[in-house]
Structure formats: C-alpha cells, structure tokens
C-alpha cells in the first residue's frame, strides 16, 4: 500500500470510524495479541522493501497487513516528533 494514515495522538484525535464499528460490534480490539513485524526486501510492486505486520485473531485466523518500508519509517519518525514534544512518553 503506497499510502499510510498516521495519527500522532489517538487521545486527542480518535479514529471515529472505528468507534462506530465498535458500537456495531464489528471491531476486534486486541491489547496483548501475538503480533509480528518483518521486512520483505522486495515486497512492494516497485521492487522496494515492504514491512508486513501479522496479528493473530482469537478465532485462530491471522491478519497480515503490508506497507512500504519508507512509509513505516516515516511514521516512526513522526511519532518521534510527538515524543520530542513530550506528548508521547
């Protein structure tokens, strides 16, 4: 996926669409789910590296989501901005 949504602070700017899904019983929120992250050297359509995140669901299924390494690293740097501002500990 060549685009990524990044939210610096979910307390001040929550994902409203997920709140709605939660009310409709269509949200699985796992706080301590087995989660894996790994890099694929040529995972993007362009041949550049991607990052895969695997999350195991309680029903035994696993969700794997992928984004580009570039966007993943950019997101990490954005969170560092929040930490530098003292918003994220």
């Amino acid at each position, binding site marked *: 996926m*060549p*685009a*990524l*949504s*990044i*939210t*610096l*602070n*979910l307390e*001040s*700017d929550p994902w409203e*669409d997920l709140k709605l899904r939660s009310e409709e019983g269509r949200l699985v929120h796992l706080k301590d789910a087995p989660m894996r992250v790994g890099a694929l050297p040529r995972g*993007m*359509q*362009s*041949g*550049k590296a991607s990052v895969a995140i695997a999350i195991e669901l309680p029903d035994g299924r696993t969700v794997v989501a992928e984004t*580009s390494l*570039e*966007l993943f690293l*950019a*997101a990490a*740097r*954005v969170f*560092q*901005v929040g930490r530098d*501002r003292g918003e994220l500990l």
Partner: protein
Amino acid sequence: MQTVPVANADRDVRYFRTSEVSLISGMSLRVLQWMDEQGGLVKPVLQGHTRLWAPWQVLGCCVIAQLKRKGYSNQQIRRMWRDLRAEQIAHGDYLLAGGKHFAITEDPVEFIRSHNGRSGWVLVDLVELRRRIRRHIAGAEHHA
C-alpha cells in the same frame, strides 16, 4: 516506448488507456469515467471515443485513489487538486494531507513538526507510485 498518436497532445509522451489506468491505480473504469465527465479533476485527451491519459494524469489518479481509500471526500480532493501544481506531484517525494493542509514534500516529518497541533495525517509515497507506472510500462513493452 509505445507512443499513441493523439491530436493536441505531446507526441513523445506515452499515453495510457483507461483500462491500464484502472489496473495501475486500482480505480474502477466507472469511477475513472466519472472523474473525467463530472469531476474534471484529471482530464484525459480524447482520440475518437478512447480516453488517453498522460503519465502525470495516471499518477494523479493513483493519488486520488489513495486519498479516497483514506476517507477524503471529492470536495477535499478537488481543493487539493486546485492548490497543487501537476509538476509538483510529478516530481515530489511525498504527498502529505492533514485536514485542510496539503503539501508535496521531501521531508514529511519536518512538515508535521511545523504544524503543531494537528494529529492526523495521510502520507502518500509518490516515488513508489511513479515506480509502479514505470514498471507497468516496462511490463507492457516486454509483452509487446
């Protein structure tokens, strides 16, 4: 490089058919047709009844597809399109969108740092999208 001769168009540009744009951008043929007829966001040239899209227009369609998937409305996308220049999108590294703020930037983190108070952003990797288009061209040439 395959070049489609089109009246009132650059003869050296490789133009894309709507089916190719759909394949690259992930937008349906119907949405692409709507964008041309109603939206006027990205206007392809016409060769008879065939719509032909220049590379920068294909990139624009890819960007619009990504923003629509992230929940941006047609109105918000239209405003962005009005404010940004096509050549910025054609040569920029990232498109960064946050509410009413849109920017083409090499350093999205610095832009976010300078917009203190805004929490939610959408980051589109324009370099990746351009690579996809180039890869499609290379694949089409390989199969020709």
